């Protein structure tokens, strides 16, 4: 298959989940996308909208630094991302407003809007139904992937914890450890594109490191 109409190679076929052959599209996501960890590049093989393979790279790696107010704003940014990716623009706009206010006031006390947003997110049955059971992570998996401990559970649990962190305001451990890119790639394989984006956003990534956690390497 080396036909290339218009300079674009034709999609090659590959076995799908159901055993039928389906076109494989090679799509690169990142390094710059809305609601996406900055600098992450994911080379995906898509069948339909299902991610069948993924390889991660990172541009401009390293901790993004900044003070606590920045970390808090980054957490709120990620909250905006989850809400926007869940298709809830109204709540995402609300979160974005809180984030802007947080940047203006610095590390000051959290504004009452956070409480309103928290109640709204917790009350939404449609959101719960939509995010429940999406890529659940056990404690063991979290350790294995070198992720922060607070991402245990499914995407809905992670979202609630993000909202709680935002409502909790100025605590010292707001600065989160950087995440290994290879593990992110492993997490999204087998999900469709929308779910993969939701899962990535729900991990509340503040910084990226190329490669994989060291204990992984020693396993071979």
């Amino acid at each position, binding site marked *: 298959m080396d036909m290339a109409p218009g300079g674009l190679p034709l999609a090659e076929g590959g076995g799908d989940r159901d055993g039928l052959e389906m076109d494989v599209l090679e799509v690169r996501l990142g390094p710059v996308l809305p609601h996406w960890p900055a600098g992450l590049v994911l080379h995906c093989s898509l069948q339909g909208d299902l991610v069948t393979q993924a390889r991660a790279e990172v541009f401009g790696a390293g901790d993004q630094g900044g003070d606590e107010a920045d970390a808090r704003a980054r957490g709120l940014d990620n909250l905006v991302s989850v809400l926007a*990716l869940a298709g809830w623009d109204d709540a995402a706009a609300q979160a974005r407003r809180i984030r802007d206010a947080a940047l203006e006031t610095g590390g000051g006390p959290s504004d009452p809007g956070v409480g309103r947003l928290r109640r709204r997110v917790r009350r939404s049955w*449609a959101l719960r139904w939509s995010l429940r059971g999406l890529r659940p992570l056990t404690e063991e998996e979290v350790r294995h992937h070198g992720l922060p401990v607070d991402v245990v559970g499914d995407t809905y649990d992670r979202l609630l914890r993000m909202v709680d962190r935002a409502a909790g305001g100025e605590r010292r451990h707001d600065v989160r450890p950087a995440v290994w890119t290879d593990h992110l790639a492993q997490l999204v394989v087998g999900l469709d594109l929308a779910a993969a984006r939701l899962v990535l956003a729900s991990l509340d990534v503040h910084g990226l490191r190329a490669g994989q956690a060291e204990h992984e390497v020693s396993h071979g």
Partner: protein
Amino acid sequence: MVDPIAMPNVAGSDSPVVTVAPGWAFAAVTVLGALVVVAAVLDGALSARSSGGPGGAPGGAARPFGEAARLMRQRRRTTVQADSLLWRIGGAGLLVTAALMVAVVPLGRWTIFDLDVGVMWFNAMDVMVWALVWLTGWGANSAHSLVGGYRFLAHGLGYELPLMFALVAPAIAAESLNVGRVAAAQDGLWFVVWMPVAFLVYLLGVAAFSVGGPFAPALGSDVAGGVRAELSGVDRLVFETGRYALLAAGAAFAVPMFLGGGAGPLLPDWAWVLVKTVTVLSLLVWLRRRLPAFRPDTFMEVGWLVLLPAVLVQDLLVAVVAVWRS
């Protein structure tokens, strides 16, 4: 002997509506256009409010006009090896479909097209949206818009059957598929009162075939705008207008089906149709902002395990009442 050519009297003497001259179709399209503006302005105002006051989002209520002006001046962009014909058919088709939908909606006593199977006609049009949205996603030869197309079809599998059976309920009660007769059959008691489930499922269906609110993942920002990712300039304007037009047409069709058509005190019947249409339209625009998206890969569960049984039970109840009354 029965004459095989003799048709049941289609738009005959007992029809509750009057078919107007075809030229009035322009007036119908104008009304549809006005409804599109109402919906877009309301949507703009609501989204400005949720982004926080005047400084937040640009425009507010004026946003649709600014956006239209911007798109009209934008240069049309195309992609390598795009399937232009199918792509354009898909993009422009939504608007045409919406116009064909309102052709069977009576404005009080007047209708453009007094079709004996008007309810089926509307249903056929909303199924056509499947093809049009898919073609828009397919034609651009872009992975993101293709993913958008897949997402819409996945939603379609979930919403279409409940929507069809929701439309069946008023038709059973009125014992007719003629939209004018369905409206006339609600003398005294609107169908929305005793078939609320069908009405709600219908509204959900309208949000779905206008690719909005909880059914917007096909246009998601995570896939660069999904189906419309590569649409630019006038093409994009026509596509967006088509979506609002479908929403408006869906709201207009709810009036004869569930809300008693032109029935109401004081005002003439055509004015009541417009008042009810604008009310339903505003409700839809407001409600669809309130809900997060239904994920396309799991919506089928809701569609077939919750909505479909609910609306079938509704149909059964309506059928029992209809038999008992006759």
